[in-house]
């Protein structure tokens, strides 16, 4: 019986600082807007009736996409800045301990935990190693890719001489071959990020229920709470 352990209160740890939490939710919102508007830019809604001068549907959809894109990009730059000045947890998804054997052991352990092979998950103050790996590969690099290709496509509209064109379009478009290829890749990576979202939301809720620490509430309050008082596996 575990009732004794439950009674004992476990100190909570302040993990996610306010800027990280703010970024997380702003980022989530901007990605949602970007995916929905982006989907309809590639596959527009049925035609609207009336004169062209009375309608601006595609224009508004594209405006929302570009505005959300700027928020997404500026938010990401801010997040990188915070990784430099924030606490150690703010750096976690950017810096992978790739040469740390025990960290890879942690990744393997998590895979076993999700395969229902291991009975009990490890206890983490920060992200578990598999979470770090997934966020790094899918979210961080997906974000970088979308910002670079996104501004390259946007720069085609702002035209030669604009900073978007000079910084992005001028080298990204030839790198992919031509504009159409950039469009195709931009859309493929949208689906890549959607796959991440599905996994991320599910796992966050599942961990909240089944792991040994809090998940969803931590991204709201910043505090990590624990369900038992045994030692954490990423303790310092």
């Amino acid at each position, binding site marked *: 019986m575990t009732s004794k352990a439950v009674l004992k209160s476990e100190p909570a740890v302040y993990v996610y600082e306010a800027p990280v939490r703010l970024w997380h939710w702003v980022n989530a919102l901007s990605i949602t807007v970007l995916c929905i508007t982006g989907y309809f830019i590639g596959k527009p809604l049925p035609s*609207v009736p009336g004169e062209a*001068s009375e309608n601006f549907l595609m224009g508004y959809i594209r405006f929302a996409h570009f505005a959300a894109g700027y928020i997404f990009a500026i938010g990401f730059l801010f997040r990188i800045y915070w990784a430099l000045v924030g606490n150690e947890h703010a750096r976690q998804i950017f810096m992978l301990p790739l040469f740390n054997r025990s960290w890879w052991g942690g990744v393997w352990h998590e895979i076993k935990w999700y395969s229902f092979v291991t009975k009990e998950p490890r206890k983490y103050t920060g992200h578990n190693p598999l979470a770090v790996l997934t966020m790094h590969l899918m979210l961080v690099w997906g974000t970088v890719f979308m910002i670079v290709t996104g501004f390259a496509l946007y720069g085609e509209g702002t035209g030669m001489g604009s900073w978007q064109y000079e910084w992005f379009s001028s080298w990204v478009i030839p790198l992919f071959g031509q504009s159409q290829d950039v469009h195709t890749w931009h859309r493929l990576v949208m689906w890549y990020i*959607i796959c991440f979202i599905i996994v991320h939301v599910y796992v966050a809720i599942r961990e909240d229920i089944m792991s040994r620490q809090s998940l969803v509430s931590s991204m709201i309050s910043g505090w990590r709470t624990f369900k038992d008082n045994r030692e954490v596996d990423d303790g310092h």
Partner: protein
Amino acid sequence: MTETFYEVMRRQGITRRSFMKYCSLTAAALGLGPAFAPRIAEAMETKPRIPVIWLHGLECTCCSESFIRSAHPLAKDVILSMVSLDYDSLVMAASGVQAEAIIEETIEKYDGNFLLAVEGNPPLNQEGMSCIIGGKPFLEQLTHAAKHCKAIVSWGSCASYGCVQAAKPNPTRATPVHKVVHGKPIIKVPGCPPIAEVMTGVITYMVTFDRLPQLDRQGRPKMFYSQRIHDKCYRRPHFDAGQFVEDWDDEGARKGYCLYKVGCKGPTTYNACSTIRWNEGTSFPIQAGHGCIGCSEDGFWDKGSWYARLTDIKQFGVERNADQVGATAAAVVGAATAAHIAASAVKRAMQKGDRNP
């Protein structure tokens, strides 16, 4: 000394008045201010004609067909006389050994000073046997002439990117000029064919200013290839409004709505069709009710359907577009997640069962 352009034009019976009109029109076509018209006139009066060798590789001659239809009447007469077109197997009277001898003559007389215009491209497979000019592979003729030229103009998508003969699987390994010739400035004038006024405009610019036009990173003259068809399309208001042709025979098609949904490549194609248009400014594909097929873009034959906005991705074996690939991936992830939820619920129920026997 070769004749100046002006002398040639006067000899052909063009009045000075017409000549001045031509100079103004050319200045306008190149996007230059009125002050440049006299400069163009001066250049034409004083500069000797540039010797040009115009080679034909694997191609369909559509570039030449376009070129000879350059819009304002003077351009047609003038541009052909403006350059000293020493060799062009398509339009020259000479043939056989005499014709081929002209190339050697030009190289000897104007080594390093003539312009090499290339229409089409060389095939590299089977030692270039798929394109034989004067008994020798075209590749040899091209590399020989390129060694002695001042600059190369790659006419059309063939010379610039490869075009249809380089489309998959490209059995002859047709290869664009810039991948065969190195160390010479190459001006790409893509399009299948390029617009006549763009072709004559590029030559006029080089003659007038004695230098190559400003090129973008892909080697195309900025003055004609810096904007997309979409940016200057007269149907753009319908795009912004969200009014599209959904089908070729629907009400939207009749009303001239945007062709985006039926695969128009205007948003991804850099060319001047929507401003200069074709055949003396008569029309261009979108005006005729058909989407742009992106003929001036690299590999446009291999980018999937001309009639779909999201184009096929061939790397997946079966032709699929980004949405089909992505939605399949998302569905697989979603299904896996659902299965995992079920398994987790079962596991948890069993654990609870353990706890409360």
